[in-house]
């Protein structure tokens, strides 16, 4: 898998404040990589540095395996913070400027405006747009050159629920075409729905990174109940791979040790002759994992 972005020991100080602190991470081709963190955790500063608009205090980064040059940014579609366009120009004219900067033709403009649902308003000045429409236009601008890499900083900021759903769908659709997406958000649900990998930042420091699937499985619990709860209880007690056990509303909720699947556990129960009336996997949300990570980092 090709390395798209490699960040090494990146640090940014604003006076005494370390906005980003010795951050290293790697994004590979095809990843939908979420950068998570509370407000002020250094997400946007990090993206600003790899886009050459914020000067790093120390450390470095490489795009496409090479030291960064201006042309590497032409292969990246990026939005950073709030949408920035010429307010007196129409959407179409704004995108024509972007196309000129990226040295691309203007033939893709109508297509991207259709994609974000702004085609009917393309002749209107940017300043007449609502926040949600502005946000859509910046996504259109990012898509304009059909880049292999997208950087989206809080892309659903300011959108209504329908808009959020549409943009998520769009991101998933783009990701399914094999594009690499780097995605900053403080909305966990969003990351859980679209990302393959994620890193968690806190006060400029990376406190976790890994795949979303792994993180969710780590937190998976199993609900069981039976008409004969006593024999179920003793069976569970004898199963060596149970890590946690609690009971809730007449059900047992248990967590298996790493490397044990629900299937393994169920097979064991069948061997023991325990008949279940209820068996369910309880997928925990990334939110719980995230809160746990933050909590652990406090220790």
């Amino acid at each position: 898998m090709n390395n798209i972005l490699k960040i090494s020991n990146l640090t940014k100080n604003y006076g005494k404040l370390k906005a980003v602190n010795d951050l290293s991470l790697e994004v590979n081709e095809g990843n939908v990589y979420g950068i998570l963190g509370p407000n002020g955790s250094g997400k946007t500063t990090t993206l600003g540095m790899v886009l050459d608009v914020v000067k790093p205090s120390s450390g470095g980064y490489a795009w496409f395996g090479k030291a960064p040059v201006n042309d590497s940014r032409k292969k990246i579609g990026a939005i950073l913070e709030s949408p920035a366009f010429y307010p007196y120009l129409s959407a179409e004219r704004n995108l024509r400027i972007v196309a000129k900067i990226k040295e691309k033709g203007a033939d893709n403009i109508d297509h991207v405006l259709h994609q974000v649902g702004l085609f009917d308003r393309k002749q209107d000045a940017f300043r007449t747009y609502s926040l949600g429409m502005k946000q859509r236009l910046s996504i259109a601008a990012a898509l304009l050159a059909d880049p292999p890499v997208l950087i989206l900083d809080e892309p659903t900021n300011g959108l209504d629920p329908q808009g959020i759903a549409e943009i998520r769908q769009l991101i998933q659709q783009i990701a399914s075409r094999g594009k690499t997406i780097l995605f900053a958000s403080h909305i966990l649900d969003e990351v859980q729905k679209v990302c393959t990998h994620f890193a968690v930042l806190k006060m400029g420091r990376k406190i976790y990174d890994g795949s979303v699937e792994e993180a969710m499985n780590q937190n998976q619990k199993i609900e069981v109940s039976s008409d004969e709860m006593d024999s179920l209880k003793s069976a569970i007690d004898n199963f060596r791979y149970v890590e946690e056990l609690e009971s809730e509303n007449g059900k047992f909720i248990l967590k298996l040790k790493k490397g044990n699947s629900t299937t393994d556990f169920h097979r064991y129960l069948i061997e023991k002759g325990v008949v279940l009336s209820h068996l369910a996997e309880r997928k925990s949300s990334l939110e719980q994992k995230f809160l746990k990570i933050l909590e652990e980092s406090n220790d």
Partner: protein
Amino acid sequence: MIRLFEIEWRKLKNYRVFWILFVLYFLGLAIVCSSGMFLMEYLKSKGADFNGIDPTILPLYDFPDVWQNITYLATFFKLFLAFIVIISVTNEINYRTLRQNIIDGLSKREFLISKFTLIVSLAILATVFLFLEGLVMGMIYSKVQGVSYVLKDLDFLAAYFLEVCTFLSLAFLLSVLIKKSGFVIVLLFMYTLIFEPFVVINMEHNPHIPDTLDWIIPYLPIKSLNNLIRVPFQKYVFMKIQDFVALADVLIVLGWLVVYNSLVLLVLKKRNV
């Protein structure tokens, strides 16, 4: 280069404020540069005479004097041309489009060049306009006609072009440094019209400032620009003037032109945009 000019052009061509400033500048320039003779007639009607000379017979628009006379008058208008540069640059900072341009793949050097193409284009337009203005006024009023007279002393137009380019580069630098258009406009106005002239007058005449420092004066940012085209009008009362563009003055101004643009690039590279 053409790509960078086209980017700049697309930013401006649908911007109403730009066109208003643009038209106002040329309108003002046209009115002032064309009214020399009306002014003289007005002065005459008020009873003015310059050491016994009838003002209306002064050959203001005679070839080749016309070039120094109108380029000298036009230099006062460069402030209005600077507004266009100031607004165009501070807009990019306030709209955060400078930042977005960089994110989209423009280098900081390319951004500088794209704005410099605007500066050079404005200077070319102003110079061509003055050439046509001088040509028309000369054809109407000049007592001497003929290509050899018309084409003499055109170096004043070249000097005017250089002066505008350099002054607009100073406006560009201040805009990048200060970021707020109102502040930049006031500062540029005050510095050009009050602060530096005040310093120069003091250096020349204040007995407490030693004359050994006078060599600095021609190197000052505005004084060096003003030295390119010297005041021509005293010659009509038989005073000696410098009626040519001196190479040393040109070199000093070229030096400032390089300094301003290099500083812009330095600031853009050092700063978080």
